[in-house]
């Protein structure tokens, strides 16, 4: 395992934003990749039920170095947090060998 100050950034937000955030991550922020999953849950903006596409959530996970991780959060929050439900967190992770970012 590598110890290189790799961060895992997780963003949970409305599913409507999926395509926009995917594009931002790669084009604007320069992340090398991401994973995205459908999730459901409850938060300040009400219950997000997975049964219906317009009101479900997605969770993005991005592995990157610390400085880019902060840029991910700052950029996305500046763009979307005013009008869309969004929450993010980051943790330190150890990554498998051969991972480039």
């Amino acid at each position, binding site marked *: 395992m590598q110890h290189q100050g790799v961060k895992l950034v997780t963003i949970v937000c409305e599913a409507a934003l999926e395509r926009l955030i995917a594009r931002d991550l790669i084009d604007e922020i320069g992340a090398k990749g991401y994973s995205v999953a459908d999730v459901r849950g409850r938060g300040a903006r009400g219950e997000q*039920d997975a*049964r219906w596409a*317009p*009101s479900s959530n997605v969770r993005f996970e991005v592995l990157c170095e610390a400085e880019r991780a902060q840029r991910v959060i700052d950029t996305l929050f500046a763009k979307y947090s005013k009008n869309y439900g969004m929450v993010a967190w980051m943790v330190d992770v150890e990554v498998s060998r051969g991972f480039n970012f």
Partner: protein
Amino acid sequence: MVIDPVVGFFVLGLAAGLMRSDLKLPSGLVDVLSIYLLIAIGLKGGVELSQSATPALAWTIAAAVLMSLGTPLVAYQVLRSIGRLPRPDAASIAAHYGSVSVVTFAVGASYLTRLGIPFEGYLTVLLVFLEFPALMMGVLLAKGISRDTPWHTLAHEVLAGKAIVLLVGALLIGWISGREGADALTDFYGGMFKGFLSLFLLAMGLITASRIGDLRQAGLFLVGFGIAMPVVSGVGGALVGYWLGLSPGGTMLLAVLYASASYIAAPAAMRIAIPEANPALSMGAALGVTFPFNVLVGIPLYHQFAQLVHAPSARILELWPLR
């Protein structure tokens, strides 16, 4: 009063949701059902079109679309001045009501088929063209013509969205294949249609019940709006249908189209195009009030409107016979 069994499934879903049953239709199933419905409706329309298309149809479509823009304009005015809603919310809700609901159309068509009342095949074409102009109008109402508006994204969202792609695609396939060519598909997309529609309505009942909380945010005004607006639009649709020379069945379906509010294409498009609008309000009104109203009360009502415009004196005499 004869109740269409598919409507019974909607009520079942609604009841199950309200009593907090653990009944749940997996989201994948709902996706498959909506894909099926869109294809089936498009295909049928295309086959009908192959039998009866004329150049005059283009004028009918243009006229129907132009008149349909009355709905978002009226809705916006009412929501702003009487409802006192902020501009983005009023515009977003207006866009929802100006657009159309494919499922409501399907229930309406099923209603007519059950009563043996024919209707013009090209109504599916109208359905396709009525889907998106109101969405553009909604954005215009919200933002005016400004450089900020993500026209590119919005156009892509709407025109490349699932609904339009499947409807137009199936329409073309049906049109090109014609009745004989599409014959092999009739069992699946024709014969089994009502069955799949019933499952979809079961899902819609559950979903509507789960969003009942939105109504609390929407408030009494939007509940009233959700009932009054479709009725007004339904009247408008019946009048336009008669003016365009549609049959009574066709007139009724045009009224259904005008009266319906989109809750698939519109919410997705509006969430991106008008981010400041609160989706709970538009979904609460369109899905929580208007959809059940249209399915339970509206469709037979618009049928009455259509009959009334086509033979007013005969119909009035039927209702109030002279003694």
